[in-house]
């Protein structure tokens, strides 16, 4: 990897699509995992049908595809621990945070205390977060 002179930018990956049906969700996650090696300030947002990507207990046997949702559990180990889920998108689909994967990370600033990575935010809050980003990938 080339030296970027220590530049740290705020990257947000906006996931808008269901986990299956199209490949966007899987290939978005592949970018996140590669991007984690670049030591940038990374966050993920899940909106619209994208919130289905984080639903726990997925079973893909019937459609012959790989269930890639367990990979989200590894994000904390890659220092990807700001995972924003839009409140309105959850509500519109009859979901709550209890339906989602219990994604955790260890906070090095607080003696490696285990914390939740998922933060449910309103549409207005997410708009503010988007406004703060340097780079927004929309998948």
């Amino acid at each position: 990897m080339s030296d970027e002179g220590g530049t740290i930018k705020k990257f947000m990956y906006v996931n808008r699509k269901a986990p299956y049906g199209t490949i966007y969700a899987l290939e978005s996650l592949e970018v996140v995992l590669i991007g984690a090696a670049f030591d940038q300030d990374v966050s993920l947002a899940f909106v619209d049908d994208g919130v289905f990507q984080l639903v726990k207990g997925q079973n893909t046997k019937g459609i012959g595809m790989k269930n890639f949702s367990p990979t989200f559990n590894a994000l904390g180990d890659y220092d990807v621990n700001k995972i924003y889920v839009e409140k309105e998108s959850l509500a519109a689909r009859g979901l709550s945070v209890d339906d989602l994967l219990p994604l955790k990370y260890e906070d090095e600033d607080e003696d490696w205390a285990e914390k939740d990575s998922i933060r449910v935010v309103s549409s207005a809050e997410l708009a503010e977060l988007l406004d703060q980003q340097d780079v927004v990938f929309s998948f």
Partner: protein
Amino acid sequence: MKFGILVNEGPYTHQASDSAYQFVKAALAKGHTIDRVFFYHDGVNNGTRFATPPQDDRNLVNLWGGLAKEHNIDMVVCVAAAQRRGICDADEAKRHGKDGNNLADGFRISGLGQLIELGIQSDRLVVFGD
């Protein structure tokens, strides 16, 4: 301003690739800098020289290739996305035992790190997709 471009859809099914191409042309004409276009998802299909659209239609593969050559733009096709979709250059074809290759002139195959690097180095990253 230095723009980075990400194209997430293939030619013809979606307008994304056309829009990206028009954007790049317009931005360059205004004096902006575009060093790299990254092709991801079905966007890798913009890089196959086997595309043969009807003669009275635009040939997006050739348009991209020509623009890249004229303005010295680095046109990168994601290797993982390309492998899934049957886009390969001579090296990739040899590595995977394929009987041919189809990457068009002006494109090269590389990894997703090039996309992250593009985000870091650009003033603005513009995503064209569905």
